[in-house]
């Protein structure tokens, strides 16, 4: 057996390695790998559960006392009964909410604002703040969207290809992401961020391709899908853009804090 990777050693530690016996035999024979495993084991043994506060009947009763008024209010609130009538699929609900959020963001951004006749410094700062806040909301939503897209692509890349390949999970996620991706791409294009818009266009093509594929594919069909969408290449670009978006989000938070102080 070749030297196990760090990931294989982590799975071995948790007794989840696919070929645990082979790794055990290898560790027996290979001093370097044994040392690496001991090192990992020491690290993980160091990470213990934090000391737990005592939890008994008193704490459970306190939790109930705090909860009860909210449950009663919940029971009396009948709007939730109406919402139960909505039997939309999860992806449709998520896409609608994302659409509403982005619409609100775009409306806020492009709605004509009155021009102040005699601008002065405090007013200008006050007007800049909502714009910063809107931008951060957008960056946060786009960051979350790109993280979820990465999960879909990673799952697709690691799909088992023995015989039939089931991509129904990745497909459901891709369907959820398509609308949000379109909105993000449109927004980036309007803001003149063509680099990010191009990456989102590649991602969108991949998401649509995954969404429109059959949910179970033969190995050959799966290979064809991967050749068409090149998930590794798209994943790399999405990871780069995702980290840039998070950096911009953090930068925005810092600027806002600086403005306030």
């Amino acid at each position, binding site marked *: 057996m070749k030297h196990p990777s760090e990931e294989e050693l982590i799975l071995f530690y948790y007794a989840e390695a696919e070929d645990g016996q082979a790794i055990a035999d290898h560790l027996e024979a290979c001093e370097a790998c044994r040392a690496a495993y001991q090192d990992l084991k020491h*690290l993980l043994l160091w990470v213990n559960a934090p000391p737990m506060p005592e939890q008994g009947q008193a704490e459970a009763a306190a939790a109930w006392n705090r909860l009860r008024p909210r449950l009663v209010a*919940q029971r009396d609130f009948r709007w939730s009964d109406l919402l139960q009538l909505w039997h939309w699929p999860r992806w449709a609900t998520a896409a609608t909410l994302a659409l509403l959020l982005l619409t609100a963001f775009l409306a806020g951004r492009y709605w004509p604002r009155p021009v102040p006749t005699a601008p002065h410094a405090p007013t200008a700062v006050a007007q800049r703040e909502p714009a910063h806040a809107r931008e951060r909301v957008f960056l946060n939503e786009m960051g979350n969207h790109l993280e979820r897209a990465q999960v879909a692509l990673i799952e697709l890349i690691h799909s088992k290809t023995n015989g039939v390949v089931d991509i129904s999970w990745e497909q459901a996620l891709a369907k959820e992401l398509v609308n949000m991706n379109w909105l993000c791409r449109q927004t980036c294009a309007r803001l003149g961020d063509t680099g990010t818009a191009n990456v989102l266009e590649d991602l969108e093509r991949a998401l649509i391709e995954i969404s429109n594929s059959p949910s179970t594919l033969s190995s050959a069909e799966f290979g064809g899908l991967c050749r068409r969408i090149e998930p590794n290449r798209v994943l790399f670009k999405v990871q780069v853009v995702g980290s840039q978006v998070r950096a911009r989000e953090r930068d925005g*938070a810092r600027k806002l804090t600086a403005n306030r102080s």
Partner: protein
Amino acid sequence: MMEDGDAAVVAQVQAGDVQAFRLLVERHQPTVFRLAFRMTGNQQDAEDAVQETFLRAYRQLRRFEPRASFGTWLYRIAANCTLDLLRKRQREAEHRAGPEFAATQAPESLFANAPSPDRLAANAEEQQQVESALEQLTPLERAAFTLRHLEGRSIAEISATLGVGANAAKQGIFRAVRKLRRVLEPMRSPIQ
């Protein structure tokens, strides 16, 4: 978790008996709290997560399938409520003063609740280093790692609990271990 009798109590609550829900809270509160505390490292956040978990469970109870295990169903809700709370805390920390602030804040309440002062004194520094390292993880990484490392859940269970694929759960754990190694390795030699 005590599963005996859960089904009967759930049926009572589904029929409109709010008071019966108390029994479910008393039975399952310790498990939900333990999970939330391990994921957040903070008593106040864990208590908030407990409240949110039971509230969400109550709202969704009419959709609960009686043949399923209430404990398993609740555990899944608890993990996701706590994950949502971690995400919210991360956003708040970044909003307050940028990511450096969030990354360097030591948890205040974690060490105030140790069972024994002697043990606390002996382990406090080490525990604090570990908690600081855990603070560096993203919410998903921390959730996946806690479920695997501290709660002993299999990758398949983590995947089902958090609603992510098995590979995403694995990747979360791998990234968590790498980050912990990066942060803890330099501190290890003088201590061990």
